[in-house]
């Protein structure tokens, strides 16, 4: 049918990395969904193909750029990321899969972007990057690549539980003049068309995502902001505790799916 829900294609990147793009819903969302699915399943064959080969994936130029900044000395301490973390392929393997996560020393839930900026400010003595800016998105992409194919596995209990509950509450809150929640679109209606858009489950295992529409890498919080704005609501700020909580919760809805970032979307 023209408007069939998720398709049954399989995602293998570079004929090598087999991605889990559908799996039984993790405990955190088992009351709401049977199966969780990557947004990849809801895109056209052409868009899907771009993500199956790194030579085709337009996000990969940004990964290369981030590789350069990984080696670039910046800030008062005369250090680069590589000064402390050496080879990104070793030191950052598995990192994306468990973020956002609790940082014991700081006593806070940290997103990958928060951690990167913490290293820039406090380890390098360099300026923070804009939370949803190009440098940040590219670095997130480089770090994600090191975990591609590994299952998303964010914690939902222990010290992060309060933030997780807050994120869950936000997910089900109907905001704005249109009075729509994330769940209205991404839980109750995934697989359906809303005007010209094919609704997915709104998973973030593929982030950062290269969008053909704006021809750049898009961060999780930028995407959230757009979706909240589309309910005719006052958005939350990227990097705010609100969006950190929402990211933690949404990430947990994808526990078990493979890390796919950087993905390609329309």
């Amino acid at each position, binding site marked *: 049918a023209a408007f069939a829900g998720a398709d049954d294609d399989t995602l293998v990147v570079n004929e090598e990395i087999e991605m889990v793009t559908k799996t039984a819903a993790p405990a955190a969302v088992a009351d709401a969904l049977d199966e969780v699915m990557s947004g990849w399943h809801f895109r056209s064959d052409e868009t899907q193909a771009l993500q199956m080969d790194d030579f085709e994936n337009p996000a990969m130029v940004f990964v290369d750029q981030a590789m350069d900044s990984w080696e670039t000395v910046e800030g008062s301490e005369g250090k680069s990321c590589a000064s402390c973390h050496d080879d990104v392929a070793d030191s950052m393997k598995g990192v994306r899969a468990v973020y956002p996560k609790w940082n014991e020393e700081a006593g806070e839930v940290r997103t990958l972007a928060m951690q990167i900026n913490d290293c820039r400010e406090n380890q390098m003595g360099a300026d923070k990057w804009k939370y949803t800016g190009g440098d940040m998105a590219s670095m997130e992409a480089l770090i994600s690549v090191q975990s591609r194919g590994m299952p998303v596995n964010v914690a939902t209990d222990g010290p992060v539980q309060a933030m997780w509950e807050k994120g869950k509450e936000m997910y089900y809150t109907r905001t*704005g*003049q249109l*009075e729509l929640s994330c769940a209205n679109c991404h839980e109750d*209606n995934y697989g359906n068309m809303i*005007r010209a858009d094919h609704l997915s489950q709104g998973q973030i295992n593929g982030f950062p995502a290269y969008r053909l529409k704006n021809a750049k890498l898009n961060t999780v919080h930028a995407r959230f902001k757009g979706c909240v704005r589309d309910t*005719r*609501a*006052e*958005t939350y700020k990227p990097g705010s505790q609100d969006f950190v909580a929402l990211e933690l919760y949404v990430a947990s809805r994808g526990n078990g799916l493979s890390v796919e970032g950087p993905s390609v979307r329309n």
Partner: protein
Amino acid sequence: MCLAGTMSQAGEVAPKDVKFTEDGAIAESLTGVAGDAANGAIIAGTKSKGNCVACHQVTALADVPFHGEIGPMLDGAGERWSEAELRGLVANAKMTFEGTMMPAFYKVDGFIRPGDAYTGKAGAEPLPPILTAQEIEDVVAFLATLKEE
């Protein structure tokens, strides 16, 4: 002082004064002026107006590209519902279907994080309704023409 969008014309029922029946219908016209079905069709298909096709398929609007599939097909709505019921559905469908996903087009306050249209910035309640009283009447007139399933 009045904001342009919230200003109501003389003889119009303002959003806060609308009386719904127990079943969510609105018996009286919001303007006393007969709805213009042709204009209602345009509003229903226009993204910045009703954008009804975002969620509904409507054969009468087949020339408008991309109809969504969130709500039921609207063909035959004019047969299933009376004019009063249709008016209630468009003004605030939550009075007919509790908790429905369908937005209220003639509601101006009581929102969580109300925004200034699609800017993402905060909006001050009362917000302008998404459709004016006469636009609601026009959409109702259009729906009333949808007789065949």
